[in-house]
Each structure stands twice: as structure tokens, then as C-alpha cells.
């Protein structure tokens, strides 16, 4: 038995908040700031943590994870920066189009799957696009303790360089920005070369960038323990399928544009979750019976688990086939 107290509801504890500021930063990215509705201070968080934002979009409840990018030392606000994804599932569009100052919303307590390793002698950050957000908080945290860090930030154009100017002005010797439209590329191999022993690198950005940093660091002899990454996956649409949940004793339909986890929640099943992006492992579910193929998309289970057909992460993974029975 785990020593942790059993929670009554799935997910992290919730906080009622009021939107206190909506700040467009450029064509794609807007910052949203929240105050607690009860006027109290927010719980402290460690840099790299995310919160799950609950959006009431008509009948539909959307739950999207966003990195907290405000200063962890400032307990009066939580802030997130959201990139509008016109091809996405609609969460970011809802934030951009519907959310106004004064709106009541719900956030979860922060959960950190991308924390600083404070044993590091030096921290090197690699950000791609909106992947800058967790590093805003990390830089604020490290600056408090005079930490040794540097940032290498790739963005498409100066106009889309979210926080690029602000960071460059504040830390001109530590922040290095690379613009795609000027054919500038992060000189990753040179940067990995010659770092002092005990350096940790952190990468947040598109999948290709994360894989590039992991693979290059491994080839340079970096221990995997010194390379940290975070990528939230959005559930991808897929063919509808039917699932039998044997503990709940119901059979549910998973629609084309919803995840298995969302379908369970829609049918009133209180399934566990934290990150909703395939990273934290909280929603891991045992497969009782399956006839068909799994579409595993998570970062949590290893290849062996994926091949075994005994486990599934319902937040991002799907199923194609005749029968699927889950122990939920």
C-alpha cells in the first residue's frame, strides 16, 4: 500500500481562479495571468511545473496542461503562455478566443515532471518556440540563488520570438537566440563540447528537437541522467472504437476527436490522471482482453510494455480492432 492518502477524485487538487490579465505577446502567443478567487496565495511551485487548465467550452470540458511560466517566488499569480494552434483540438483556440479578464476558471495544483536537478554544477537550456515557457520559471528560480545557467532559444522569426527580447535584455550574456528565417541554428555539438563535469541540459520544444538533443548528447558520452526533456502530447484523433470497462461494468464509445481518457470521463468514470499528455504515468491502465492493435503514443511505457499489449495510457493512446476490455 502506498503511504499517500487516497484522494476522493482523480487528478490533482483544484484551485478556483479569476483571469487577471490577458496579454497578447505576438501573432500566436498570449499570456494568461490568474489570481485566486478566494484572495489567498497560490501554493508554491518548483520551476518546470505545469498546471491543468479546466475550460468550460459549452457542454464540453477541456483539460489542457500548460507549463507555469511565472516567477515561482511570486505567490500572488500563476501565469501560462499559450500558443494558438489552429489545427489543434480547440483548447488553445478556446483560450485565445473566449477567455477574458474577470472570467472564473479552474486550475489544478502544480505537478512537476520537468524539475531542475539542483545538484547540477551548471544548467544549459534548449528551447524551441513555445517550449520557452518552463525556462522562464527556471531562470527566475535560478536567478534567486545566483545559479549557473545559459539559454539557447530557437524561434522562427524575431516577430514570433516569445520573450526573446525580454530575456535578452535582462540577461544579455546568458541568453542566445537563433532565428530560423535568418538560417541560424543552435550549434548543439559545440555547446555540448567542453561543458564542465556535472552540467545538466534541459530541452523543451518540438519532438524532433528533443530527439536531436537526446541523441547528440548520448553520442557525445553524456549520461542520460544529465539530459532532461518535456513534451506534452496532445491526443490525436483516430477512428472511433468501443471499450468495455470491467470494474465500472459499462461499455463506452470513444469518438474520433476525443481521447480514451476523455471518453471515460464523459461517461462518469473517475479515471486517474495528472498530465494528460503521456508523460506522468498516472493514468496507466491494465488491459484485460484485447483483439486488435494498440496505437501507443505515450512517453511513459517502455517498448516492452507497448509490445506486450497488457497496458495502455488512455490520455494519448488509442485502439483499432474488435474488442478491448480494460481494468477500470
Amino acid at each position, binding site marked *: 500500500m502506498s503511504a499517500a492518502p487516497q484522494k476522493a477524485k482523480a487528478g490533482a487538487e483544484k484551485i478556483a481562479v479569476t483571469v487577471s490579465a490577458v496579454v497578447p505577446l505576438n501573432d500566436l502567443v498570449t499570456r494568461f495571468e490568474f489570481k485566486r478567487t478566494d484572495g489567498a496565495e497560490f501554493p508554491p511551485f518548483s520551476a518546470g511545473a505545469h498546471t491543468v487548465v479546466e475550460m468550460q467550452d459549452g457542454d464540453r470540458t477541456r483539460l489542457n496542461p500548460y507549463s507555469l511560466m511565472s516567477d515561482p517566488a511570486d505567490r500572488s499569480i500563476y501565469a501560462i503562455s499559450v500558443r494558438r494552434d489552429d489545427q489543434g483540438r480547440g483548447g488553445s483556440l478556446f483560450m485565445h478566443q473566449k477567455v477574458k479578464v474577470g472570467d472564473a476558471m479552474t486550475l489544478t495544483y502544480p505537478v512537476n515532471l520537468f524539475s531542475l536537478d539542483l545538484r547540477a*554544477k551548471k544548467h544549459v537550456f534548449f528551447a524551441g518556440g513555445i517550449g520557452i515557457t518552463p525556462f522562464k520559471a527556471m531562470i527566475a528560480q535560478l536567478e534567486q540563488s545566483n545559479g549557473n545557467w545559459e539559454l539557447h532559444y530557437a524561434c522562427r522569426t524575431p516577430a514570433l520570438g516569445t520573450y526573446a527580447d525580454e530575456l535578452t535584455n535582462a540577461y544579455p550574456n546568458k541568453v542566445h537566440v537563433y532565428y530560423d528565417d535568418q538560417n541560424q541554428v543552435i550549434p548543439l555539438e559545440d555547446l555540448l*563540447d567542453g561543458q564542465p*563535469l556535472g552540467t545538466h541540459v534541459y530541452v523543451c520544444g518540438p519532438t524532433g528537437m528533443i530527439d536531436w538533443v537526446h541523441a547528440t548528447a548520448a553520442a557525445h558520452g553524456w*549520461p542520460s*541522467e544529465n539530459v532532461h526533456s518535456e513534451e506534452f502530447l496532445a491526443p490525436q484523433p483516430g477512428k472511433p472504437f468501443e471499450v468495455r470497462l470491467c470494474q465500472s461494468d459499462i461499455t463506452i464509445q470513444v469518438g474520433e476527436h476525443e481521447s480514451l481518457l476523455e471518453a471515460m470521463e464523459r461517461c462518469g468514470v473517475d479515471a486517474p490522471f495528472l498530465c494528460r499528455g503521456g508523460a506522468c504515468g498516472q493514468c496507466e491502465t491494465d488491459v484485460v482482453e484485447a483483439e486488435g492493435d494498440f496505437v501507443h503514443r505515450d512517453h511513459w511505457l517502455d517498448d516492452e510494455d507497448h509490445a506486450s499489449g497488457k497496458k495502455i495510457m488512455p490520455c494519448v493512446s488509442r485502439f483499432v480492432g474488435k474488442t478491448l476490455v480494460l481494468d477500470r
Partner: protein
Amino acid sequence: MSKFQFPESIASRPVYGTLEPRPGKAHLMIADAEGAEAILELASQDAALMAKTHIIYIPKGTDFSEKLRALKPAQFYEGPSYDASVQRIQKVLGDAHMGLQVYLAGTEGLMGQAMNEAVSAGIPASAIQTEHRGSVARRMQCVHCKGITEDVVTDPFVCSHCGLNLFVRDHYSRRLAAFQGVCIDAEDPGNVPEPVELYK
């Protein structure tokens, strides 16, 4: 044969592996006595390895030094004892950069102490390779006087500092790189079992 299969034990007891070449910008190999054989086998697996390798070797009365020199490592240092070599180990680690691979081979006392140096220099313990070779002698801490007795080969043994009769435990301290020795005749002084050689 210099290999020994330790019986399974408690979680605190270190477990050693087999050295394998890994990609890296530089390689630091620290070995004593028969640990040289592990380095010789490692070198035979990757001809390019030695050009980027610094070997720190403590012979402890064995005659492997010439064979190690013949591998033509980038640097070779032979020390009379671990204590005499530790300053060099600290200097090498202090000057090192990310991409350094560390390989430890030989006795448990050497590997444990060198592991401590590498970890405090910033390398995670799980990224440091170890291979036990040669003597199964242990570096023991007397839990009563805290004195360290090196190269203990019998159980029980007499603490070289306070003279108590100590029982050899598998309980290991990474911080001290030593096993714990506990007084075996505290309740009935003088009632000490006949010492037996470890693992015999």
C-alpha cells in the same frame, strides 16, 4: 581467474558489472591489481579507445603495468597506493568536461573510493562503470571507533584502530566506501568465533 561471483545480498551491497566501451570525448580508467585484466579486455574490444584514455593504476604487487603501458593510452600513471593517487584523480576529474566516461576495476575498496570522487565531481553513480577483479578483501569501518581497516579478508577480524573483534557485515556505506564492522563479543567478551576467510 580474477573474476568472482558474489552471492546475492542485501540492497546496500554494491553490485558490479562488466566494463564495456561507451561513446565519449575522453575516458578515465582507474584500476588496482587484477583490475588491469578488465582494462586489457576492454581495450581489446575497441582499438580507438586508448588514444583518448587516461589510466591511473595501482599495481599492489602485481605485474600488469607493462601490459597496460603497451596499450599506449594517451596518459598512464602508476601510483604506489590509492591514497597516493587520489590527488591526481581529483585533479583529472576537476579538469574534465562532460563526455568523460569513467571505468573502475579491481578491488571493492578502490572502486568505492574512486566512485565517490567521480560522483562528487558531478557524474551520476549510475553512469559510472565498475568491474570487480581480484581480491575479495573488504575496506571495513569499525562502527565503534570509526577507524577504517583496509583489505580485510577474514570474519571476524580485529579492528586495526581500537582492537575490538568485529563481525563483517554486508551493510555498506557509499559515503565512506566501506562495509560496516560490528563488535561480535560485546555481550560475552572474549567469546569470539574462529576467523574464517570471506566466502569460504
